[in-house]
């Protein structure tokens, strides 16, 4: 049985799809058979971030409607073994997702995969609720600013009350906090909430802190998940997060302002 992980946030533009791509790729790199599903019907992005937009023939909605089989719609990633993608439909809207349809697809995938990563759309409406309904675990992506934190709090409430596990009175969804676009120097200047501020407000375990990094934008535009960039701090931070998701206890990095080395200071002074 696959473990279903939803990547959600409430607020848009905080890095859900970037995170879905990175975490999914990271899990596959660890040898786990993983599929990432784009639930953002009508605003399909995952295929771009994964660099497989030209290979989408059938999509998630086609499978739900019985117009294509799963094997026709699932795209195998070219870079990473064990990694598969199910794209969203760009020409439809969220009403195309039905609970029965989603359940059928997830049930079928469950027997074949170790992890199903559901990339949720923004908001708290039907699309987002459908993405989180069947989840076993949730990665709540939050930027260190007040509106993002409040929306994450709202989505945590929905995870508690409107998921299948909540409705059936089962063990609640395991929640993970992932803080993205973290900039320690702006935190020091008081422009950004600190990790402890966010943890204090949301009160869920911290999965990882992804530093703000130019590598993220570059990776998105190149269609390669940032976790593949082992030189970038963001890539390393995502690798750490995947390790923690798999149960390893490792310390958090990139939380403090990087001390400038001797040469950097020298160069900085001369520039």
């Amino acid at each position: 049985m696959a473990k279903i992980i939803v990547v959600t946030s409430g607020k848009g533009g905080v890095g859900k799809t970037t995170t879905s791509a990175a975490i999914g790729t990271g899990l596959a790199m660890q040898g786990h058979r993983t599929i990432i599903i784009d639930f953002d019907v009508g605003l399909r992005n995952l295929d771009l971030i994964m660099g497989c937009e030209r290979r989408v023939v059938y999509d998630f909605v086609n499978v739900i409607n019985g117009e294509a089989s799963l094997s026709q719609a699932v795209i195998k990633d070219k870079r990473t073994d064990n990694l598969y993608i199910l794209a969203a439909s760009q020409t439809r809207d969220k009403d195309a997702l039905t609970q029965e349809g989603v359940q059928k697809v997830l049930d079928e995938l469950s027997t074949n995969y170790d992890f199903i990563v559901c990339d949720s759309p923004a908001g708290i409406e039907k699309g987002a609720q459908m993405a989180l309904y069947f989840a076993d675990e949730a990665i709540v992506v939050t930027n260190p600013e007040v509106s993002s934190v409040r929306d994450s709090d709202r989505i945590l409430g929905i995870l508690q009350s409107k998921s299948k596990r909540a409705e059936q009175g089962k063990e609640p969804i395991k929640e993970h906090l992932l803080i993205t676009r973290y900039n320690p120097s702006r935190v020091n200047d008081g422009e950004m909430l600190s990790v402890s501020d966010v943890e204090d407000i949301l009160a869920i375990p911290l999965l990882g802190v992804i530093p703000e990094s130019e590598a993220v934008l570059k990776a998105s535009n190149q269609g390669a998940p940032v976790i593949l960039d082992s030189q970038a701090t963001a890539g390393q931070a995502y690798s750490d997060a995947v390790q923690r998701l798999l149960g390893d206890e490792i310390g958090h990095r990139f939380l403090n302002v990087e001390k400038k080395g001797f040469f950097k200071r020298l160069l900085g002074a001369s520039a």
Partner: protein
Amino acid sequence: MSHADFQLKGSTITVVVLDIYRYLPDSFSTQLEQKILQAPQFFANSPVLINVGKLTNDGSPVDFRLLIKQCSELGLQPVGFKGASDEFASAIADTGLASLPDSSASVRAVSFEAPEPATQADPEVQVEIKTVVQEKVVQRPSKVITRPVRSGQQVYAEGADLIVLSQVSEGAEVLADGNIHVYGALRGRALAGVYGDTEARIFCQQMDAELVSVAGNFLLSESLDESIRKQSAQVYLQDDTLKVIPL
């Protein structure tokens, strides 16, 4: 092990006690009917225990079956007799209803003497109907929430206290007819005594509420004293004014 089909338990019930002093069938029936008409709802199908401890019929026999029938016709349900003397014991046993021993001292203490027959115009039968009403305070269990109350969620403890063992987020609302306890940060809205209980209070470990209210008297976050912010505090009503003081 199989389950027992029944369980024997002791229980206290409230019944109407009919103290009868003298029994003359016609006037008994008339007087009882008049009494019942004063509160027909109250006596409808009411179980009644007939206390014959004070019954003297000048040595003449009493037709207890007729007495029972008269009570039944007027809508009462005779359940038994109490305090039967040897004089009536066998007649009562023949009716088939329960015969209880004379009442305990406590009941005797609250029963009072029959009025003097001489003061009555028609002192043939004196019926006194006594009701014993037991009042019990029914307490509803407090509502206990163990997980955070998140933004957009609302929790209401109807007729009870609310205990939150976690935080109440900004944009969340907790309400109770009684007190509210928050063993964490209170960042949302808390309304205690929403049904008008002015004695209700709010207790929290970290006061950072958007709004606190007791019985409709509310205080907004901006009116909170800065010294109390993020401190453990309680909120209560004093002379129609909300007081917020450290715990």
